[in-house]
């Protein structure tokens, strides 16, 4: 008698676990789909269909507010006049432009992602500046030494980054770093012109990719610490 009850209870427990596992897997897939930026507005609208009406409104409101603040700061930088008339004009103009173009600036950032991305961006900023500084020194050494030991080459590599904005951030960081220039991005492959073997090697280690994937919260990106944190959950789900 007790055995039957035990068997029933175990069955019920397995059922609940199975349902929870399926739901968690669905959530994983949906969030992965929403993370990567879609290639066109039409696809973006399809992806937004996952969100409910209230969530879409919140997303639009959040984009609008952040765009408004950034534009207002830009206005103050442009016109350094702080009397009431010009500030009111600034507010009206920022509201107008934010209303016209609020979905342009932050194209597909999920709700709740923004603070994390901003914090990670501020943390990764100094690292990028340090890279630019050291690459500057290296290129200056190359240019000033009498025999000029450059070895220009074009490297191709595929990245694990998958959204538009990550590609552009990667391409611009590569171009900003002295010694490398992004020549083209074709079908997900980067073509980079590098000045000599050392800068090519620095690029191929993939550290810049890692940092950008970390800042922009790419779905496939995995830091060792994150793996250790979620390995228990991953193991149980899969």
């Amino acid at each position, binding site marked *: 008698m007790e055995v039957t009850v035990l068997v029933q209870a175990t069955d019920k427990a397995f059922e609940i676990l199975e349902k929870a596992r399926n739901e968690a897997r669905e959530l994983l897939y949906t969030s992965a789909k929403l993370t990567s930026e879609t290639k*066109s*507005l039409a696809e973006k609208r399809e992806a937004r269909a996952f969100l409910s009406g209230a969530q879409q409104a919140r997303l639009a409101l959040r984009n609008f507010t952040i*765009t408004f603040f950034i*534009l207002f700061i*830009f*206005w103050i930088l*442009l*016109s350094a*006049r702080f009397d009431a008339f*010009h500030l009111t*004009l600034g507010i009206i*103009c*920022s509201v*107008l*432009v*934010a209303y*016209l*173009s609020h979905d*342009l*600036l932050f*194209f597909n950032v999920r709700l709740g992602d923004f603070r994390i991305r901003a914090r990670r961006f501020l943390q990764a900023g100094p690292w990028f500046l340090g890279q630019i500084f050291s690459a500057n020194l290296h290129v200056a050494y190359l240019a000033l030494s009498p025999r000029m030991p450059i070895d220009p080459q074009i490297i191709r590599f595929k990245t694990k980054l998958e959204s*538009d*904005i990550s*590609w*552009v951030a990667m*391409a*611009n960081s590569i171009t900003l770093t002295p010694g490398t220039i*992004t020549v083209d*991005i074709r079908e997900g492959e980067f073509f980079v012109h590098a000045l000599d073997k050392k800068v090519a090697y620095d690029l191929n280690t993939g550290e810049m990719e890692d940092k950008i994937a970390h800042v922009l919260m790419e779905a496939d990106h995995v830091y060792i610490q994150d793996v250790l944190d979620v390995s228990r959950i991953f193991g149980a789900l899969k």
Partner: protein
Amino acid sequence: MTRITDDVIIRTVARILIPFIQLYALYVIMHGHHSPGGGFQGGVILGASFILYLLTHGLEETKIRMSEIKAGLFSSFGLLIYSGIGLLCLILGSNYLDYGKLSTILKVMPAQARSLGILGVEIGVGIAVMAVMFSIFFDISTGGELPEDEQNKRGAR
């Protein structure tokens, strides 16, 4: 027919820059009396931002943002603001575009009323110039096809 560009860098950077270009255009319009600029210059920059969107993101998506009908309406609206302010001065008993008379409505000194009147006129000019620049470029890129022609073509097929 302008298509969306394949180059992801151009597409993304253009889309990020467009709000800043538009805000700069409005800054140029509003500060016409303090620094180089004014209505026409700001209007051209504002129109250029829409043209940039048209060049990088193609015709279909630009039609959603600013269609030909809206551009036509905006150009007339800008003209309405301009001549409306002029007529308002006329109605109030002075000459056409004599902004000093606006001080009776706005309750400020005549000199400040002139400044505000000019600002209003510049805003009208800016809107009209933006709309016309955009519609010229739009007409060129559609090859002069009107929406009715497109519909007739589709209906005939």
